[in-house]
């Protein structure tokens, strides 16, 4: 093998962490932070099946999130309940189902990730999808921010708010599914929200903010993965804790 397993996991982590941070910077503006949590949890049944039958975890996660999202969407048409309530119902059912499928001995990998299982396919997938998502988000970034400030203003400027929200949601789904391998289904939302929140404290302009979130995502993953190397503790929680630490530091820079 050309790359050691450690190098592969580091490269994968850098790409996923960076893009998650970048995506997340739009999430806290659009107040969609709560979507990311349930999405990660929705991945659990699929991840469980993938672990059990030795399929690619990313595919399992993606498939089960998409099915979950369709169920939520159908329920929303059928009932008059709020999106939050429906998401709550579906994601709880998803988690319960996941635990029924999954032998408890394998639960750790599904819940908090396992970077030692990352192979070349995972790395290439992370680089490829990461770059695509980055380019897409980069192109719709300003439009999303404007529609976050005022949908009416955005529409007056000819922005198709619904279309961009859908594109954004698809990007989040892809990245959350990728994240599962690194931080597990429980912690996906953290990698979206924490770097962006920290960057928000550091920045005064949009450009600094978005790049800052990306950078903090990258730095947290690097710190977490190196901490894993030296301590042997699980990398997923270490990555999230590194991000949380950077967030704590950022509080002192608050404008």
């Amino acid at each position, binding site marked *: 093998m050309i790359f050691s397993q450690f190098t592969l996991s580091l490269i994968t982590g850098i790409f996923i962490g960076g893009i998650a941070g970048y995506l997340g910077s739009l999430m806290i503006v659009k107040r969609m932070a709560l979507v990311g949590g349930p999405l990660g949890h929705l991945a659990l049944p699929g991840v469980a099946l993938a672990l059990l039958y030795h399929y690619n975890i990313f595919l399992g996660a993606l498939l089960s999130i998409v099915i979950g999202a369709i169920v939520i969407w159908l329920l929303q048409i059928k009932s008059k309940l709020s999106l939050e309530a429906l998401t709550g119902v579906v994601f709880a059912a998803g988690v319960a189902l996941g635990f029924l499928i999954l032998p408890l001995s394998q639960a750790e990998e599904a819940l908090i990730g396992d970077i030692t299982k990352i192979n070349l396919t995972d790395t290439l997938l992370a680089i490829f999808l990461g770059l695509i998502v980055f380019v897409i988000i980069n192109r719709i970034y300003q439009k999303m*921010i404007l529609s976050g400030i005022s949908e009416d203003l955005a529409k*007056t400027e000819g922005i198709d708010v619904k279309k961009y929200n859908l594109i954004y949601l698809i990007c989040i789904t892809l990245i959350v599914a990728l994240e599962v391998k690194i931080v597990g289904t429980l912690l996906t939302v953290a990698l979206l929200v924490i770097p962006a929140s920290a960057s928000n404290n550091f920045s005064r*302009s949009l450009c600094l903010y978005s790049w800052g979130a990306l950078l903090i995502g990258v730095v947290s993953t690097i710190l977490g993965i190196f901490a894993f190397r030296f301590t042997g503790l699980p990398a997923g929680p270490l990555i999230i804790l590194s991000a949380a630490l950077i967030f704590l530091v950022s509080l002192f820079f608050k404008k």
Partner: protein
Amino acid sequence: MGEGNFHLKIINLLSHWLDSLSKMEEDFILKVKNLRVILDGEKILNDLSFEIKRKEFFIILGPNGAGKTTLFKALLGLIPYQGEIIWAKENMKFGYLPERLSRSEFKKIPLSVRDFYKFKESSEEKILKTLKAVGLEGEEILKKNPGDLSSGQFQRMLIGWALLGDPEVLFFDEPTTGIDIGGEKTIYSLLHKFWQERGLTILMITHEINIVYAYATNVLCLYKKGICMGPPRKILTPQLLEKLYGNEVKFYIHKH
């Protein structure tokens, strides 16, 4: 013989049609026919018809709940409606200042005035020119978060934003909300200045009767039981004002 007549008729008809088309081009920028808006099962606007000419300073008056903001949103294509809204050309460029856009909404985002203006205009020179036109000068303003401006500066900043990209029609929904009386006057005279200088069509919602008298070329009054339209001095009779604002008082009492 009959054929010649027929041709003549066709030509007549065609030229008549072309005439009326070009007249529309010249005179009318907007025609609204039988506009009806229903939101959440409630009829907000019913069978509303009116026309606006190019370069008018068109003011919409009416008590709360009469559907003024809803009318704006329908004209801008932001909400579904029945009936016809015909602009003199497709893809008319609009500038819009919504009612009560809150400063706190901006404060949550690390966004500078420059960033906000860049959404619409990439040229730094034009941005500076626009800011100057609305009375906000200096590099300092560009770096500030819109949420950190004073309420007067904030409103000017939004007016400038609406003016970016050379719109043909401007929509202002109560542009002086939250501004003290002195500030109100300067905002209105600013808008009036732009209207005079740039040959724009302005549609504005306001409660300021003085402003209506001073600036409006035409007024549309919306109230629960009907509408009226015309130049301010002609239609703003004491009876009408009582109807409008008497209604508002009643509306208030009902609510409490």
